[in-house]
């Protein structure tokens, strides 16, 4: 993702939900939405987990985000037993 943000590791974006965060991110850095959002299914792309304040969200785009929250987009990693 840092390839799309000019190498910036931290981006300040407004938004009350993960969906709004992604939409606002796209305005700042075109192309980021396509890496995160599945338009056909209207949900996060398969394999993408939104991690809000250290916790992998179970609500995807609907997850609420606080004004000072940290949001990371990471691979959804399955386990083995």
């Amino acid at each position, binding site marked *: 993702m840092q390839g799309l943000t000019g190498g910036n590791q931290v981006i300040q974006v407004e938004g009350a939900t993960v969906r709004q965060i992604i939409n606002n991110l796209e305005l700042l850095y075109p192309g980021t939405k396509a890496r995160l959002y599945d338009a056909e299914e209207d949900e996060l792309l*398969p394999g993408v987990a939104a991690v809000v304040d250290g916790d992998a969200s*179970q*609500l995807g785009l609907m997850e609420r985000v606080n004004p000072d929250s940290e949001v990371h987009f990471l691979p959804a990693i399955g386990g083995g037993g």
Partner: protein
Amino acid sequence: MLDYKPNIVLATGEYKVVGTRPIRHDGADKVTGQAKYGADIILPGLLHGKILRSPHAHARIKSIDTSKAEAAPGVHAVVTSADWEQPTGKVEDLAEGSIHNLRFLSNNILAYGKALYKGHAVAAVAAANPHQAEEALALIDVDYEVLTPVNNFREAMKEGTPLLHERLETLSDPGLRAGGYKSDEDTAMGSNVANHFEFRVGDVEKGFQEADVIVEKETNTAAVHQGYIEPHTGTAMWQPDGSLTVWSSTQGHFNARDLLSRLLNLPVSRIRVIPMEIGGGFGAKGILYSEPVAVLLAGKAGRPVKVTMSRTEVFEASGPTSATNIKIKLGATNDGKLVAGEAHLIYESGAFPGSPVPGGCNCIMGPYDIPNTYLEGLDVLVNHPKSAAYRAPGAPAAAFAMETAVDELCEKLGMDPLEFRLLNSAKEGTRRATGPLMPKVGLVDTVQAAKDHPHYGTPLEGPYRGRGVASGFWGNGTGPASAVAMVNTDGTVSLVEGSADLSGTRVAFAQQLAEVLGIPAEEIKPTVGDTESIGFTSNSGGSGATFKSGWAVYEAGQDVKRQMIQRAAKIWDIPEEDVEYTDGVLQHKSDTELKLTFRQLAARQNATGGPITGRAGVNPGGAGPCLATHIVDVEVDPETGKVDVLRYTAVQDAGKAIHPGYVEGQIQGGAVQGIGWALNEEYFFNDQGHMANSTFLDYRMPTALDLPMIDTVIVEVPNPAHPFGVRGTGEVPIVPPLAALSNAIFHAVGVRVNELPMSPGVVLEAMWKKDNGS
């Protein structure tokens, strides 16, 4: 210092049922042979399926002639990949990290166009008995154009090397580890690299400039198998109305149903998957091999078909975990503070994309607080079986690199390795190398408990003996889960939940429900429901079952409790607020004469409003990572290089151990699998890409005779996101052993063994090199 006991629980929260050790409900069935496993299914008219497998690691399939097999005695059906539609390359998310490219999944189940590893399924036969099916396989004529096999990542990444998939796209997104083909517009050549991605936190170059001491090293690990006792098996039966029933040995029957639905273009409502008891999975029974073949054969034959793998088929045609190559560099100041870390991880995925290299990146620096980090991951295809999940997928090989590098750093700094870990441990608020902040975890507590353990305080004497330590991280998973609790009139509760029971989870669910209801665990009758008996529940994987289905059970219990309070209020004609429910007894808050036990009220349920059933469907967050620290003593035979494990202690944060006995079993099992991975086990491939040791005689797993008792210490740092503080515990114990043993060998004989397995020959060669000064 702790008093020595074989298994210690450092409990922080006391409950009446949670934290005790009741006998498992399914125990008697299992020890008396009554429990039904997948291969135990016998149905009227059942046929037996056998699979023809490629003798070549890489070959184009020019034609398949099945006519002679179809005419053979007892044969009812023959199928190939031509018998089902080829799915698109679209990636499917089936919850809890279960992500598949259906095209690749389909082509792994039955080869299409090319055979991509020795053992790759090419065709299948259903016959009246297994012998007739095997004889018919020999009559199938496959015309192969044999191609040069790609045997390791070095060959795979070389310019001009043969491509496994001519159209494979190199993605740069670890989330899309299932991989995919190039778009039609992209006319460039494909690649054997399915994914290449990076994580960067802080300024790693600046970090290394601040370092006084730097360690750089490279490790290699061989592919290893999960080694579950029960081979893959699946039985399929089509009903006259066109619906399908499948009996499976699976870690996730809903996932199996959903995959079959997509592969067969059949609605999920027309497929019922019944989970059988499972003889071990460790991650590899979260995907499908036998079941779809049984389905196709059953459809063609018009009779039920069972397909069960042999042990050799399991080795050659199911999914081991990846072989890996990792280059790592760590920097620390003279006072022992880590300031920079960099790692390049290459994992071989086998014949299709999807190695656990994202997991390796997620875990490699998990135990540490390092302000500047850079991680690079590559998923590389080779002509070997497609890798599958294996207990903490990706993490053990990553920890082998990281934790041996930490040991080298400690040696250079002259620091005690546990003191070093206390100084650098990740804790709540630590920035992880993949970006997010660490939630509340118990690594410091496990390191301190290891330091306080009599094992660490006891001097290790004698030549060729050494002690090693290592820590490990696993993120743990969660997902949707369902539970229904039905109160019986005799005061017992029938509990149906949706998590396949790999490890004694039935009793852990019964305990959580019993705790909520204030009744003994023995009064709960837990059952794993099939896909038509309970709501969706994601795979038993990611050490998530006790957490997520535990949450569902807890909520179902609360639902029962609410209804019991309503009934008591109705009987006593008082407001519900005046009823209190404590330890399985309902009573009026002020009139102590008004009292009913759970059992008494259960007996009156039908007359007071009907049956009481509690239910819950949840998708809880906050699974909470799990960390562990292991100590091992070894003795190396200077003549043969054989390593004997003298003593082993595993310390682990369990959040809250619902049933400490089964947590201890998980820790011991994980440690033993890690010891096997470290010292003995490997897929040994010849230059044709053929596995040369595909039996348990030649693929040496540790037995009870090889090992001492594994002592455990359960540390409890409750997970704030679970009502009882549960963290998943099943996977992290396999993470530290590989490095702990390598470190112990170094402290025994002064050589760093950076290749796995550290078999006698490898250790001896390393010792000879050291003696010769090379």
